[in-house]
């Protein structure tokens, strides 16, 4: 009876799928049982024979090359497409900024400090996306990215856990706004890149900080959606070509981590 119960799960045992203590018990049993050890040997032989016989078909070199070409070409093309879109966005932004400046001069109004900051943030975002190496620390792990900034910027910040969110962290780099060093993080959402900027609020010029506290909606002339807030003495900007809801969703994650 003992042997029968073992033999019923002999395959599962040989597949390495029974608990460790059960494995040890069976090993001990098989050492003293000729019948079970013979069955185990036979089934191991069968497993080996199937493994050898199962490696039966080999793809042709021509077919391999065809697939290799396809998978090699597409990501690069889409990657280039991403930079082309970023470049196009940069041109739109430049034209938009020039037009806005022109109209501003014409109407005799100076661009507000806040709009200037938004424009700077948009420039930093586009400039980074158009760069061949958009991030200096390349990692999806917040525990790698966050320490990388230590000693490079005069403050620390927390990054959110993204496991159950649609966002993924691609990496980070140092950046400057208003002659102030800060952190620039890049997140991915369905192939769209979103920039998150973090600066020390007190390092920004009082005029700029005050204008950002005015809490007005993001400027309409930007080809991106943008959200900014101050929390724990840090100024955050989230900018990208995704929907307002997506920007807000990432902003909420950042707020909850801070």
């Amino acid at each position, binding site marked *: 009876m003992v042997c029968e119960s073992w033999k019923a799960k002999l395959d599962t045992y040989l597949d390495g799928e029974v608990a460790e203590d059960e494995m040890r018990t069976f090993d001990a049993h098989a050492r003293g049982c000729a019948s079970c050890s013979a069955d185990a040997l*036979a089934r191991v032989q*069968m497993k080996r*024979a199937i493994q050898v016989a199962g490696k*039966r078909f080999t*793809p042709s070199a021509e077919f391999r090359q065809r*697939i290799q070409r396809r998978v090699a070409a597409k990501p690069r093309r889409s990657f280039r497409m991403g930079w082309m879109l970023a470049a196009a966005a940069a041109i739109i932004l430049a034209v938009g900024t020039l037009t806005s400046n022109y109209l501003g001069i014409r109407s005799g109004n100076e661009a507000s400090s806040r709009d200037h900051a938004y424009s700077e943030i948009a420039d930093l975002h586009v400039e980074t996306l158009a760069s061949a190496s958009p991030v200096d620390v390349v*990692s*999806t792990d917040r525990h790698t990215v966050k320490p990388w900034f230590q000693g490079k910027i005069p403050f620390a910040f927390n990054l959110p856990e993204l496991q159950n969110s649609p966002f993924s962290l691609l990496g980070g780099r140092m950046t400057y706004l208003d002659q102030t060093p800060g952190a620039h993080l890049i997140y991915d959402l369905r192939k769209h890149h979103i920039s998150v900027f973090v600066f020390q609020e007190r390092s920004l010029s009082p005029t700029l900080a005050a204008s950002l506290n005015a809490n007005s909606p993001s400027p309409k002339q930007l080809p991106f959606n943008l959200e900014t807030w101050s929390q724990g003495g840090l100024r955050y900007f989230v900018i990208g070509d995704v929907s307002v809801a997506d920007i807000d969703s990432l902003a909420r994650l950042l707020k909850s981590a801070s």
Partner: protein
Amino acid sequence: MFYYVDVSGANLQTDSFEELAMPLFDQLYNFAQWLTQNREEAEDLVQETYAKALKGFSSFQLGTNFRAWMYRILRNTFLTSRTGLKATMTVPLDSEEDGPELAIEPDTPETLLFERSNREQLQSAIDELPVYSREVLLLCEVEEMSYQEISEALSIPIGTVMSRLSRARRALRTRLRPMMRETGAGAIE
């Protein structure tokens, strides 16, 4: 773009779909031809699998098993193909009432097979298995996937993996027995 993914249990950092998917090419092709039993159809199946995987790569869940994900795409593509539909229509629905596993006999096909090393006979016996039995057997024995990984690749519960595997092995032994008799090995029974 960089991703951390779990490929067969190992964490790798890689910069493209190509680097993840191409090392699986030979084994996916082998599996595809086992399923389709035809070279041209296997090539079409693999090609479509790579096209779908590439397109859906952004939806791949980081930290999950990339190999199981690729096999799942291939297998789902096969099941919706003409050959796949035909193959599965001839297969009875899963039944968990297979009865207890019988104790193995001393004059087993396994022993005879090993002695005679008749690979072709074994291959044709695997060929004759219903597709649901064939795929689970190949993933376990050839690809050395764990039950969990097979469960992910085939989108079936682990219990079903075990029952299909058990049925496949039993069917294989039953099919091999008359083959061995024909070659004279059955005389010892």
